[in-house]
């Protein structure tokens, strides 16, 4: 059974996207814990993840979002954040429509200026967004070109999109998520929000700098970063100065003057688009700070890694290199060998000829161990 809610005639629809609303997903954190989440998926078979799938359309497209709510409990909507759609398609309960269990709702819009936008549920939004019902929406140039920021804009070699948020597991308790839905009654929520997990693209802690999640680049590439925040903290994306970060757009519009600087502060709901220029470095660290908007203090500082595809990383055998992570000694050979240990940026830390090395004087973090022409990733606790 389905209902058609769309009222706006755009003539020919250039692009239709199916988005499915779910409320029974499990999100796994870096420390092994997990929590229940809501979310959006493109198919019934895929697992619910945060954030939801990125929606990509072209400038000028007439777009139809077919939102199918298969979740039980409260209804959901899709708010098209920053797209300046009309009231009927804005996804705000009371002002447009809600989509009940097993029904379809249709949202229509004309894709505005190319850039980075967001979408999220606006029913009990403080609860449903925190629960995981959000994602990115990217408007490409009118011809769909992938390596150009907008029509007659600036080209680039590669792009990465980073969407920051947080999770306070108190807000993921069933008693909060399975709330009653009566628009005439107040929705009771926790009085405070104190996140335990600070995430980027759903990743936290050691997941952020795991090689599986490295942002790979080629030497001398120009990279375009789409930086967004849909959490309840402020976020600072801090690039290494060697990358000459140059921010050219915000909230889907070009800036009248480029913003030069390595730190891009992104508050809840904001988006920025930033060029980076890579050289011959083997890697570069992106520091992501989440800061509390009330205390103004940094609550989490985590690292993500840009890694040159020209530098390989060999799989570590737990038998040959151990213990890893380590608090002090790390063993890597049965007989003495030449070795050197660098930090993730390639800066030398320890060099020698031995079967093992002490990392006791190194700060906690990720390091690269090179022996016999191979590179291994090791971790100092």
């Amino acid at each position: 059974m389905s209902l058609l809610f769309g009222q706006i005639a755009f003539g020919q629809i250039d692009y239709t996207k199916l988005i499915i609303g779910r409320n029974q997903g499990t999100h796994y954190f870096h420390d092994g814990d997990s929590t229940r989440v809501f979310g959006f998926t493109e198919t019934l078979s895929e697992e619910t993840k945060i954030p939801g799938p990125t929606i990509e359309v072209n400038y000028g497209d007439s777009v139809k979002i077919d939102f199918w709510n298969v979740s039980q409990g409260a209804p959901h909507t899709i708010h098209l954040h920053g797209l300046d759609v009309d009231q009927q398609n804005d996804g705000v309960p009371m002002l447009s429509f809600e989509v009940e269990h097993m029904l379809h709702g249709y949202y229509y819009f004309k894709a505005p200026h190319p850039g980075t936008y967001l979408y999220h549920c606006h029913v009990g939004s403080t609860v449903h967004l925190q629960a995981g019902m959000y994602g990115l929406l990217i408007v490409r140039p009118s011809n769909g070109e992938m390596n150009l920021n907008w029509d007659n804009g600036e080209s680039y070699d590669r792009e990465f999109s980073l969407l920051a948020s947080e999770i306070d597991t108190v807000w993921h308790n069933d008693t909060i998520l399975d709330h009653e839905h009566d628009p005439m009654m107040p929705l009771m929520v926790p009085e405070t929000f104190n996140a335990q997990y600070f995430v980027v693209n759903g990743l936290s802690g050691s997941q952020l700098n795991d090689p599986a999640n490295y942002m790979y680049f080629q030497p001398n590439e120009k990279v375009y970063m789409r930086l967004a925040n849909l959490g309840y903290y402020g976020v600072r994306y801090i690039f290494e100065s060697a990358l000459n970060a140059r921010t050219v757009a915000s909230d889907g519009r070009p800036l009248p003057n480029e913003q030069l600087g390595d730190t891009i502060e992104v508050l809840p709901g904001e988006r920025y688009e930033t060029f980076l220029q890579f050289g011959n470095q083997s890697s570069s660290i992106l520091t992501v700070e989440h800061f509390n908007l009330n205390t103004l203090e940094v609550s989490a500082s985590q690292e993500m890694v840009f890694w040159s595809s020209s530098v390989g990383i060999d799989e570590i055998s737990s038998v040959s290199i151990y213990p890893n992570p380590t608090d002090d000694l790390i063993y890597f050979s049965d007989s003495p060998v030449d070795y050197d240990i660098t930090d993730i940026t390639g800066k030398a830390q320890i060099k020698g000829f031995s079967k093992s090395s002490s990392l006791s004087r190194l700060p906690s973090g990720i390091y690269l161990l090179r022996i016999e022409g191979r590179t291994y990733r090791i971790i100092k606790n």
Partner: protein
Amino acid sequence: MIRSLSISFLLFALTINVYSANIDLRLEIFSGDLSMFDNSIIPVITYSDSSAFSPSSPILIFEDGDVLTIKVVNSDINVHGFKVDGLIDIGSIAAGDSVTQVITLIAGIYKYYDPTSIENQYLGLSGLIHVKESGDLTPYFYWNLREHEPELNNAVSSGGSIDQTLYSPKYYTINGNSGDAIDNDAQAKIFGNVNSEFRLVIMNHGLSIHSMHFHGYHLLILDNSKNSSHNGRDKDTFPVYPGHYQLLSATPDKPGEYPIHDHNLIAVTGGGQYHTGMITTMLIAP
């Protein structure tokens, strides 16, 4: 001399006080209680432009070149003051005393405040002054943002100090109102028309950073006190830092009712209830 100017548009009529030419203004400092939607009571201290306590300090609107004779009366039991950076410095005023000063006003957006302590400003002793350019007939709306942590208000009212590292507000207000009550504030509730410009001044009097998001339209930053290089940006979400303001302009291209809210969505809650904080709508007629 106070001139009362009525601006009518849509089906809504609002009256705001516009002071012009030679102006006498009397502000009186009172302590009192701010009543929240859930009947919680929060102790505050505010300036009032009447002889009675006001739950929030008034928005003062003048024109460039006006000559202002301002008298500030301290009817609280503690020393307070009145200052506008670069414009007015009355200094401290003993309890029960008053100070008068005459000043020629210069176009701009200003924050007035009690310079004696950040605690007094937190409790409510700060407000917004808009000295408009002569002949500026653009409709303006004004938002003074504040958060409230009742326990902190109680502690500060008893002589305690603010430790922001522990700050955890419970209520979020615009001009002293939250949620649906904002609709009843003619200076805050935005009514507009398609193809007709309106402007909004958002000033943050609290301790937290707010990130105000607009549905329906992008708005142009005409001026802001945090970083002048951001003027001219066309955005849908605007950071408003403590002590700072944003002056925004919009010319709606379509009719409708569209929400505006802090996108730190904790700030759209209050006292553990959703939709009772910094959230309202703008109503745009065809």
